[in-house]
């Protein structure tokens, strides 16, 4: 039996639903010794900003039970270097590349998106990291405010016809409300979740283990939060959802698909094993064969919820 693993988001068709998450796979080529990236459903890049960024002072990461906390601070090469160095490389990379964009005002995001639009190149769409403070509204994060989210999405929508994905934060009261705002603004798809607030402290020194005190928690410990978020979003809106958070195995992928995800992204697990997403893709094929699933789309949202 041949299994059809392909999925669609907006107008774009992906060969399989397993992508690698922003900030956990660099610009896509760092792990070429270890993995054939052309097998991936897509590569989502590190967040790209208007200017290059050094990021935060160390320490930037710490391990936590089944997870980690990071405060990288959006260290990246900036959009100009990205266009110069990476866009040409993507011509032959063998899979879709989604550029993740971050900013601190609507103009910041627009600047990056417009530059990318005019540079052409093999980028199939954009994922918008809204877990950034909006300096125009008193530094409140875009991600927690439906109005900011809607306005930002609208502005970007009017500047591109390509796939536009809004990446949502779990650090909100009602993620369904933010999802609805992004869809009203014109998002083709939503991805969830970005990291949760997290903190750990060294009792010996009484110092937090990362320089920003509070950072972003990721890894297997956040998986149930990711699955619940996908479930809520897929109930609230009609666009495809990309599930993110704590994925390490094919079983985790199936859970996300059943909860309503049309695709998933593997994040923290790449740090242990850069080839883990490709292994999961193989396992997904095997799982479908063994369970007589002809097309992966048959699993999406098929959780049998209690009434």
């Amino acid at each position: 039996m041949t299994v059809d693993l392909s999925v669609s988001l907006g107008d774009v068709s992906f060969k399989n639903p397993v992508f690698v998450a922003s900030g956990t796979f660099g610009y896509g080529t760092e792990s070429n010794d270890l993995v054939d990236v052309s097998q991936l459903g897509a590569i989502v890049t590190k967040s790209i900003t208007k200017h290059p960024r050094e990021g935060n002072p160390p320490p930037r990461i710490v391990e936590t039970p089944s997870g980690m906390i990071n405060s990288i601070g959006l260290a990246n090469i900036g959009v100009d270097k990205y266009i110069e160095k990476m866009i040409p490389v993507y011509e032959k990379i063998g899979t879709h590349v989604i550029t993740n964009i971050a900013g601190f005002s609507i103009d910041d995001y627009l600047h990056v998106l417009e530059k990318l639009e005019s540079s052409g190149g093999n980028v199939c769409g954009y994922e918008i990291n809204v877990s950034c403070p909006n300096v125009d509204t008193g530094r409140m994060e875009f991600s927690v405010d439906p109005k900011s989210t809607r306005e930002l999405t609208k502005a970007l929508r009017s500047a591109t016809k390509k796939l536009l994905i809004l990446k949502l934060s779990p650090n909100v009261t009602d993620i369904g409300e933010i999802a609805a705002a992004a869809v009203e603004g014109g998002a083709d798809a939503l991805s969830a979740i970005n990291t949760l607030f997290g903190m750990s402290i060294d009792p010996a020194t009484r110092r937090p283990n990362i320089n920003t005190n509070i950072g972003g928690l990721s890894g297997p410990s956040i998986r149930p939060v990711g699955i619940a978020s996908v479930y809520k979003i897929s109930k609230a809106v009609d666009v495809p959802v990309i599930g993110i958070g704590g994925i390490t195995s094919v079983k985790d992928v199936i859970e996300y698909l059943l909860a309503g995800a049309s695709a998933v992204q593997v994040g923290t697990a790449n740090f242990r094993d850069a080839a883990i997403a490709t292994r999961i893709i193989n396992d997904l094929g095997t799982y479908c064969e063994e369970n007589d699933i002809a097309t992966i789309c048959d699993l999406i949202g098929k959780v049998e919820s209690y009434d």
Partner: protein
Amino acid sequence: MIVKKMIAEKGTVLNNEEIAHGIYQMTFSAERICNEEPFPGQFLNICVDDSWEHPLRRPMSIADVNDNQLSIIYKVFGEGTKILSEYKNGYSIDLLGPLGNSFGETEGTTPILIGGGVGLSPIIWFHKVLQTNGVEHKIVVGAQSVNEHFLSHDPEENIYLTTDDGSVGEHGTVMPTVKKICDEVENPKLFSCGPEPMMKAVHLFVNKFDFPCELSVESYMGCATGLCQGCVIERASNSLKEHSYHERYSLVCTDGPIYQAKEIVFS
């Protein structure tokens, strides 16, 4: 810099023993990594726990290479190293390596190798390589007490031990011994890896006297391959631009772990 290929390999543990109080040496087979011809300073990133309770690998400097065998010397100081210390012969060990750069030029200098605690591996291995190549050099190893040492104090053979409590070798930190040696030898060049206070002291000393010095920097790491951008160290630079990338912070896993002392600052 020689760019070597990273290899993911499952090795087999051949030996794992406590060689001094709280300090272990583990030897394992790892043919494909050995084929990449690692050099002192380079490291492995080791997955200590098959479950995901500890998701991150542990970076460990290589302490020796023999044909297809590698070894590491490690001090038990956290959950990861505790798990490692319980590995038995025959266990499979999940390795990634060789990673990072390595110690550089010694020609025209008298190398002085300085190590201690968790930072012994690259120093011990470099010592062995220099011995094999007939390069005259000195090695100074510091510890709190005699039971943490596994070498013998033997100044005639250019091996100097120091202890905080004076129980073997020179009494005190490595610094007085290092200073004395620097006064006596021609063109000293220092190579150091050790706990942060030791590295800071070496750093201060070489900057004051303008001695060449390579430091092997220890850092908490996520991936060790440049993906996560977690392991940075501040560069010494006085011409910082408003917007830059990797000019203020250097990535220890791929730019390091070996730095010229002048290149970096310890905050």
